[in-house]
């Protein structure tokens, strides 16, 4: 119990007055000589118990009544636990940040955390001061309700909030709430964050804030144990099979024993295993699944683990698309007896390694002289390394226009004029001259910002210091100005284009300014060489790159390169769909808010690709936020909150009852 005027409460010690007066009264009782004392004694024996009880009751009533007066004047109150902070009843402008992210689907008892959060939000709206106005912001970035005094509208908006698969971004939500409060009518402005306050929702840097932020933790400090599939990778196994890797995390404080893991392909369970996971441990479970090589269509792969309080992350989907075999013809422009000196030594080695790994590349070699005898219809990609021109390029042109891919690299055999005459119109840019590095200092390569699949799949590796930056180019072919339809992918440190691509007919031509052996540069001995060459060949061959991401994360942007289409429609797992225009052959899809498989279709309805969006692994980790960068979280009380309950009204009533009781008992 607390008091507004505690000094007055000290007078409650007067509670001892009635007993003292009683005792003093006994000592000062009037003495009477009386003859019939024996009858008094008998009478007293009869009424003694009742009399003593009455005395005690009277003394107690009087003592309590006396004590009640100073306590009443001291204005007592108690603090009782509350689901909401005490500030909620104030007159204010308030914005409620309601977390409807995936982690709020965590089930606690018979309700989800979102159900509880909505209930808290509704209570909050109900309890706001009579002239308060309030708004609503969703922590997943959804709909916003501006400040309004219309409680019904706000209550309806809260009721309409649905659980999502989206990740939490409380800091952004708080920032949006503060924007709403900028034009608030009240001086008291508060942001109420109703969330599970998991650490993943409060990561990042919080901007300083002037407003009061109240955090309401709907987990009520209950354990947040969760098991989740945080990744599902499906790769092509050498020979055409499927290699599945399921990453499972135990975000609990307790170990999980014999956790069932089920793999389904096309809706049919094909494998099942049991794993043990220690607390806070992650584990990778691999499966190999045979796939009918005759079938080329995309299939859905689904991984499942046993149920827990957050069921949404117990299932994860991926898309498996059997890779199309790419047939590559390597044309050796400078064959040598010594294998290491051969122009194709590095190129052939790189592609054969890739072919060995997944079996979807078929590599064979030829020379310029024998090129005319090759049936290009049986080839998907032609790589011409340091070829001496002129050559007959008619077949080559037809090959490209029909959809073939052509990779051209240069070397000591290059004759700029002859090359331009032979197939300069095929190249992304005509050749100008052969140059050495300026000042004798070798030049390096750099990746240009682009949405090309090559950049998307290998962007991080290429941009790494050990990637293109490590390549030293001592001699190269200087291109003339690239054609308008050409795309510059790599550039030399001098600024000259290094790798150019151009679409010709249904095919594409890629020109690299230097050699694919070590004569003019050291690219072939750099770690990036092997994946780069493989990607280039797969890209030109139109097959699955093997690295093209067919999975993404709900709430994040997903990009996919699509050939031969400008406009597609995307069908959500829930069957709703929307049409998108492609930018330079790229679909940028950032509206994925469901977990599952999305279908990309041409306007004609033909499915051209599919991808799966999974839940952000961060959302599965429900560990509570620590005192990090959340705005004012350091000073915040996460509850249970306390609310003052004034007692003096009840005490006043009690005093009246005490006085009434005293009067009644006295008269009896």
């Amino acid at each position, binding site marked *: 119990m607390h008091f507004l005027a505690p000094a007055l409460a000290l007078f409650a010690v007067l509670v001892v007055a009635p007993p003292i007066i009683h005792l003093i009264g006994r000592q000062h009782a009037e003495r009477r000589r009386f*003859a019939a*004392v024996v009858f008094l004694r008998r*009478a007293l024996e009869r009424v003694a118990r009742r009399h003593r009880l009455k005395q005690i009751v009277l003394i107690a009533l009087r003592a309590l009544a006396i004590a009640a007066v100073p306590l009443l004047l001291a204005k007592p109150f108690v603090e009782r636990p509350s689901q909401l902070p005490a500030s909620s009843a104030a007159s204010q402008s308030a914005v409620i940040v309601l977390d409807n992210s995936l982690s709020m689907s965590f089930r606690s008892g018979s309700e989800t955390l979102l159900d509880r959060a909505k209930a808290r939000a509704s209570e909050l709206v109900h309890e706001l001061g009579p002239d308060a106005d309030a708004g609503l912001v969703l922590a997943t970035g959804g709909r916003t309700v501006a400040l309004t005094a219309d409680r019904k509208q706000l209550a309806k908006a809260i009721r309409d909030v649905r659980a999502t698969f989206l990740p939490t971004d409380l800091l952004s939500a708080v920032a949006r709430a503060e924007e709403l409060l900028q034009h608030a009518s009240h001086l008291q402005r508060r942001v109420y964050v109703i969330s599970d306050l998991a650490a993943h929702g409060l990561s990042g840097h919080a901007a300083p804030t002037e407003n009061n932020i109240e955090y309401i933790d709907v987990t009520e400090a209950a354990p947040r144990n969760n098991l989740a599939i945080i990744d599902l990778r499906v790769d092509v196994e050498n020979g055409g099979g499927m290699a599945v890797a399921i990453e499972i995390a135990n975000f609990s404080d307790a170990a999980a024993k014999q956790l069932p893991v089920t793999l389904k392909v096309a809706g049919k369970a094909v494998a099942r295993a049991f794993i043990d996971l220690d607390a806070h441990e992650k584990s990778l479970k691999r499966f190999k699944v045979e796939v009918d090589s005759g079938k080329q269509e995309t299939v859905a792969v689904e991984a499942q683990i046993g149920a827990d309080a957050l069921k949404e992350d117990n299932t994860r989907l991926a898309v498996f698309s059997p890779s199309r075999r790419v047939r590559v013809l390597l044309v050796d422009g400078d064959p040598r007896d010594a294998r290491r000196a051969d122009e194709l030594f590095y190129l052939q080695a790189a592609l054969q390694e890739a072919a060995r790994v997944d079996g979807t590349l078929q590599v064979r070699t030829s020379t310029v002289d024998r090129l005319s005898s090759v049936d290009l219809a049986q080839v998907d990609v032609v790589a011409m390394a340091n070829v001496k021109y002129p050559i007959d390029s008619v077949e080559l042109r037809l090959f490209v226009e029909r959809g073939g891919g052509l990779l051209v690299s240069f070397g000591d055999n290059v004759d700029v004029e002859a090359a331009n005459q032979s197939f300069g119109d095929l190249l992304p840019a005509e050749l100008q001259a052969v140059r050495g590095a300026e000042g004798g200092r070798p030049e390096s390569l750099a990746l240009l910002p682009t949405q090309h699949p090559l950049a998307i799949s290998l962007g991080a590796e290429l941009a790494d210091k050990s990637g293109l930056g490590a390549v030293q180019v001592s001699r190269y072919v200087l291109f003339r100005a690239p054609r308008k339809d050409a795309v510059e992918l790599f550039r030399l440190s001098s600024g000259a284009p290094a790798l150019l691509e151009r679409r010709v007919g249904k095919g594409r031509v890629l020109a690299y300014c230097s050699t694919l052996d070590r004569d003019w540069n050291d690219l072939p001995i750099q770690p990036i060489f092997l994946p780069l060459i493989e990607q280039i060949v797969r890209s030109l061959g139109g097959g699955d790159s093997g690295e093209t991401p067919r999975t993404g994360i709900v709430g994040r942007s997903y990009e996919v390169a699509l050939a031969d289409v400008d406009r597609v429609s995307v069908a959500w797992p829930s069957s709703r769909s929307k049409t998108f225009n492609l930018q330079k052959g790229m679909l940028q899809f950032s509206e994925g808010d469901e977990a599952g498989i999305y279908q990309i279709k041409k306007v004609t309805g033909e499915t051209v690709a599919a991808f799966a969006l999974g839940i952000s692994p961060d959302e599965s980790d429900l560990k509570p936020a620590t005192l990090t960068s959340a705005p004012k979280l350091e000073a915040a009380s996460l509850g249970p909150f306390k609310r003052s309950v004034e007692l003096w009204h009840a005490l006043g009533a009690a005093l009246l009852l005490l006085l009434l009781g005293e009067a009644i008992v006295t008269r009896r």
Partner: protein
Amino acid sequence: MRSFEFLDPTALSKLGNLELRARTIVEGALAGLHRSPHHGSSVEFAEHKEYSPGDEIKFIDWKAYGKFDKYYIKRFEEETELSAYFLIDSSASMGYAGKAASKLDCARTITAALAYFLLKQQDQVGLVVFDEKLRAYLPPRARGGQLHELLRKLETLQAIGRSDLERALTYVSEVAKRRSLIVVLSDLFGSEQADEKEWQGLRHLLLSLRAMKHDVAVFQILDDDELTLPFSGTSLFEAMEEGSELLVDPDETRRAYRREIDRFVASYQQRFAEGDVEYHLVRSSDSPIDVVRDFLSGPLRRIR
């Protein structure tokens, strides 16, 4: 209305002379009675009384009937041979005085008045004063100096000690050789705790007295305070006989106390009735004149 009716006990107590007080009371009592209260079958004619049903026909005065055409009964002065013993309880509890005179004073006044009357009738009057012991004894006599002797003893009485009525009655049973009237004046405190066995002893004694043709009358004298417990405020009550103390809130205890005292009075009333003993409850605030008158007109007439 006679002037004696206005003599209340307080006014009487202010009459210091006990003899004067006795005479005043007796005259007051007699004023309310027929002039000659003692009637019997003596040979000396006393008066006429108008006949009323129940009177013996043999005493009808036919001559008077001839004169007045009404029936008159002839009544005669009786020759008295009565001895009266007045047993006065002088224990400490008899000294209690509320607003009226003390109970001992009340007993003293009643005794004096009755003794005065009886001696006037040539009866013999004796006195026994007792507490737990016999404090004084005056043998019954009818001679002229007996009244003064008795009054002198009454005036010197002091309320001390406990009460032992049985001892006093035992003594009287031994000394009273002829038919006597034994009058007990006591608050009967001290024997209030008597159990049935002890009461049986007292009852046996009373029956013995009755068997000896004695008549017994008991005046239980109680103060109004003792009957009603009118006090208020927590008080420390000191017992007058035992000296013990008791802290009591009279307001809280009054009802239970009255039940106890009523039960006490009723039990003696019933027991004396069973023992053929005349019983009178006298409040010390009662007018002695009324008390004496009632006694003279009732029990004493029957005894004679």
